[in-house]
């Protein structure tokens, strides 16, 4: 068992997988990551994934959009080339609300999605780091680092007890590399 890098517990049911995570954690076995075909609620608390700060980022991106548009429109309409239209105010704030709103949403959306892609390392052409190809189909995969957790037979037993349909010993970290 010298070359094994990762032990993968492959579950067919999300509840059994959650049970498996509990079992492993009760036995002080650290979990590398979990790969699922759909979001599983409550799993982030078990694995200690911190609360997302993307909402705060989104707010500041939005505010940046608001300030950008308001200052730009002030520069363009009231300072750089003011046009006298029937003596109406150059900086007609109510007229600028719709475009300011649109720019707020635009900055917020692009900033938010950009931060999301950056923080989770998603970008076009990134090599997929997949441990089990069925994790995007019908399997819920718990990955355990085999070098850090030496008791392989115990892990095997715990996963089977929790209801794992299949246990794999991967000698390569990612099966998706060609």
């Amino acid at each position, binding site marked *: 068992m010298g070359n094994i890098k990762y032990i993968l517990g492959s579950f067919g049911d999300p509840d059994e997988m959650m049970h498996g995570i509990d079992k492993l954690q009760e036995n002080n076995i650290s979990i590398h990551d979990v790969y699922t075909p759909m979001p599983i609620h409550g799993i*982030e608390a078990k694995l200690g*994934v911190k609360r997302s700060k*993307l909402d705060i980022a989104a707010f500041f991106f939005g505010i940046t959009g608001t300030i950008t548009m308001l200052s*730009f429109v002030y520069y363009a309409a009231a300072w750089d*080339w003011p046009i006298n239209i029937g003596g109406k105010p150059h900086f007609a704030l109510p007229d600028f609300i719709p*475009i300011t709103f649109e720019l707020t949403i635009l900055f917020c959306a692009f900033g938010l999605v950009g931060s999301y892609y950056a923080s989770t390392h998603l970008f076009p052409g990134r090599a997929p780091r997949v441990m089990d*190809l069925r994790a995007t*189909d019908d399997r819920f995969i718990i990955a355990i680092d085999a070098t850090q957790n030496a008791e392989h037979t115990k892990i095997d037993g715990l996963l089977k007890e929790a209801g794992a349909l299949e246990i794999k010993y991967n000698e390569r970290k990612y099966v998706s590399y060609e």
Partner: protein
Amino acid sequence: MSGHNESILREPLITGHDITYAKITNDILSPVENKPNKAWWIGFIVSALGATLWLFAVSYTFWNGIGSWGLNKTVGWAWDITGFVWWVGIGHAGTLISAVLLLFRQNWRNSINRSAEAMTIFAVICAATYVVSHMGRPWLAYWVLPLPNQFGSLWVNFNSPLVWDMFAISTYFSVSLLFWYTGLLPDMASIRDRATGFRRRIYSVLSFGWTGNVKTWQRFEAVSLILAGIATPLVLSVHTIVSMDFATSVIPGWHTTIFPPYFVAGAIFSGFAMVQTLLLVTRKVLGLENYITMFHIESMNKIILVTGSIVGVAYLTEFFIAFYSGSEYEQYTFLNRFIGPYWWAGCMMYGCNILMTQLMWFKKVRTNIPLSWILSIIVNIGMWFERFVIIVVSLHRDYLPSSWAMFYPTWVDVSVFVGSIGVFFTLFLLFLRVMPSIAIAEVKLLLKTSSEQAKLSQIKTGHVEVAYVSEYVDSLEKFDSVKQEEYAKI
């Protein structure tokens, strides 16, 4: 997510008895992974011919100018802006389904949001082409952008609703695209992990290296919720601003403060009708009856009924205010919709949008698939006529009776409009072939709680009141994808 049972009183969102996670993936990816059937080819060829017609008619317009349309000095806006508003309106349902229904936790959106969002994007593309082609000199279309120009830095007029519209439509298009594509990533990864060779390479690039680990999923849900939160006011603002193109003018029939809410309701109304038109066919041709069920169809019909009635109230309000204003121009404009030379357009507008929609009060109509499909087409026709009546009928009798005129479309007008429908369907049919038409991951979320089989096992294990079970079984009667005889013995 799956630790509790959903109430038996809620109708199932996935029907069928042998549904597994693998079967969901197989069913939804089958049109992407297999060769298209004959129905798809026929649809595609017809649409592609339409798109070719569009290409020709738009090129003809670019070459000869908009003089090739039937416009005259009285009716300066006609089929172009009618088509623009119609397409933008249709687009609104996609965002409504993906954003507003997400905020309200309406789980039935999960199986229709993907194709509805795709519809939004394609409809906005069609709308945008109208904006560009009606400009007369489309190669100068960038003049609507606030760019410093060669005449000195004379900026665009930020007080103009047409400039607001440019900001609104471009923001709407790009935010919708982001929302849609981010949602597509996990499903693109599903295709990637099942494919081989060159296909795998392509979907590998398209799926951005998605793996489905805990952090990515957790952030994915946070992003979806925030995007839904900002897309909701955005979608309301877009048609509000489109309505301001008219409402801020001085033309009787346009100069109306009710326009923003009236246009937004009308947009959702026509958009849901288009979703219905597309999905009733899609579910049949692609065999997705178990995922897009009668519950989805009926729910959409209910939204069509509600928004159609809001539009009806808006029509009545307009009439009352025209009477109550005491302004003879305003009164004449609204009377002219019935007694003027365009009385038939007025009848199409009010008849299709108000009278026909009221049929949806009957459950037999709401759950009848052929009838729902016909009604959805009628709503689309009615909403096109609504924009035609607002634009052309308000313009054709202006303040000066000597300039009263009629609008007669040329073959170019007709070809651009018919062609834009071809462009829309070409894009939609291509989408069905290369991307999953249903959000696979989101449908999988429903399997353990809201599917027919989960509810059946809940009944079989007992602990459910008999009255509830019989009510549930009664509610299944309308489903075309449920085997009724299985419930006869319960």
